[in-house]
């Protein structure tokens, strides 16, 4: 059977954004790429992983989250699973709160739809993705792109996609070289919250969504404030308890939050991003942790499919090589 490699480019996501615990998420311009190199017999899979997390992953298809999500979607839709060989090129830091696992779920469900020729509508694809992931705040923006407000009752999903970030706004993500275990992140949260804190977050989340929808970006710093999860989860990684206040005081920083359940910290920045980024990484260093940072934009398109790989070479008519010809070197 002839087969053109199929590549899925799936973005990182930052969920919660402070007050929007379990309901807000934003797609970011950092991508895992999953390539289906060849088709195999039904139920016959092979996989390799390179990059982030490859040390933790085996090449056993039964351990691969893209394939397990694919199989789950096939089961839910009553499909016989077409086998394939898969390459996972991971650059989204693993277990750091940037939605790495959601990229695998989104890719797996999208592949089940694509390889079966089922042409499933967007709402059903998202419903199955959420069912597999257990919550919508990463998979929804990951699949749809942009900033998404989503609610899930365990069976059905409702969501709204908000306008993109302005061109001059960056999302600086500082990623420390430590992991927060999901189990610890969940256990850190209180079983009950004081009524006053609930009201505090209700107001902030409503303000965040309204400000975003009406592009009143100067209100984000208020809107991203939180009392439900960040005060507890910031204790789970070195520097977490001081980094937010330090970053918030930087000129150009319009909002700061723990990404997902951490330990990555994201700051929305207007103007030069490096002072904010360096402050974040310096804080981690002072607390004995190495870190790296990303300067990202919102990803408007979400997951994309590309029916050839590798991509085409840059073309001279697009303006490449001009400086070289100009003789600066």
């Amino acid at each position, binding site marked *: 059977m002839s087969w053109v490699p199929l590549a899925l480019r799936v973005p990182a996501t930052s969920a919660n954004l402070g007050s929007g615990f379990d309901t807000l998420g934003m797609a970011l311009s950092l991508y895992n*790429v999953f390539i289906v190199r060849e088709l195999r017999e039904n139920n016959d899979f092979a996989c390799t992983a*390179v990059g982030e997390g490859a040390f933790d992953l085996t090449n056993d298809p039964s351990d691969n989250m893209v394939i397990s999500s694919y199989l789950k979607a096939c089961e839910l839709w009553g499909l016989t699973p077409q086998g394939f060989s898969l390459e996972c090129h991971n650059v989204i830091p693993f277990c750091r709160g940037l939605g790495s696992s959601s990229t695998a779920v989104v890719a797996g469900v999208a592949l089940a739809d694509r390889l079966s020729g089922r042409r499933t509508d967007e709402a059903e694809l998202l419903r199955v993705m959420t069912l597999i992931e257990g919550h919508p705040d990463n998979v929804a923006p990951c699949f749809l792109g942009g900033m998404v407000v989503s609610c899930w009752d365990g069976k059905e999903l409702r969501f709204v996609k908000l306008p993109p970030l302005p061109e001059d706004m960056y999302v600086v993500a500082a990623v420390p070289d430590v992991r927060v275990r999901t189990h610890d992140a969940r256990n850190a949260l209180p079983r009950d919250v004081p009524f006053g804190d609930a009201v505090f977050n209700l107001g902030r989340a409503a303000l965040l969504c309204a400000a975003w929808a009406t592009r009143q970006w100067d209100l984000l710093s208020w809107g991203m404030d939180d009392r439900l999860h960040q005060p507890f989860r910031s204790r789970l990684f070195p520097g977490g308890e001081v980094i937010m206040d330090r970053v918030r005081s930087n000129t150009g920083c319009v909002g700061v939050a723990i990404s997902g359940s951490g330990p990555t910290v994201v700051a929305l920045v207007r103007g030069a991003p490096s002072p904010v*980024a360096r402050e974040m990484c310096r804080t981690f260093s002072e607390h004995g942790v190495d870190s790296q940072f990303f300067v*990202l934009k919102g990803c408007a398109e979400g997951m994309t499919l590309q029916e050839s790989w590798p991509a085409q*070479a840059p073309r001279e008519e697009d303006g490449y090589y001009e*400086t070289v010809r100009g003789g600066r070197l």
Partner: protein
Amino acid sequence: MRGSKLERIVRSRDEARIVLMGVPDVPGVAATVFSALAERDVAVQMIVQNNMRGGITDLAFLVHKDQLDDAIFLCRQAAESVRAQGVSFNTEIACVSLYGQNLTEAADLPGRMFAALARSGVNIQMIGSNALSLTCVVAETAADKAIEALHREFLELFENPELQDPQ
């Protein structure tokens, strides 16, 4: 160390590391990235391209911290234009270098340098070498430890110049 001469051990904290990740391994990509940086006069050093796997590779290099904002802007733009998977940055690094003459002739030099750093628990993030220098990029917090380890390792060469023979 026959045929070469080690002259100095140097530390620098002025650089930032940039990695373009998941770059399509096709002709013209490196030209796109470094031509864009050249247009804004952003100087680069220690350019390292990883082995290609599955048509995708990584491209890492260092820039001066003073030029980081220009580099961030240009690298992001270049990454988008070549459909790279992302760009990461690290400012909390230091370069520790051995400088000298004909260092590529000293077969034992890289092994001794890396072993000295390893014994001190210093992890190496990047390596670059040429005839005049052998440089390791390490975490900034490990820079002092790295320099101490290298001084210990190569002290005898500075104290006994007859051990080195650049001829």
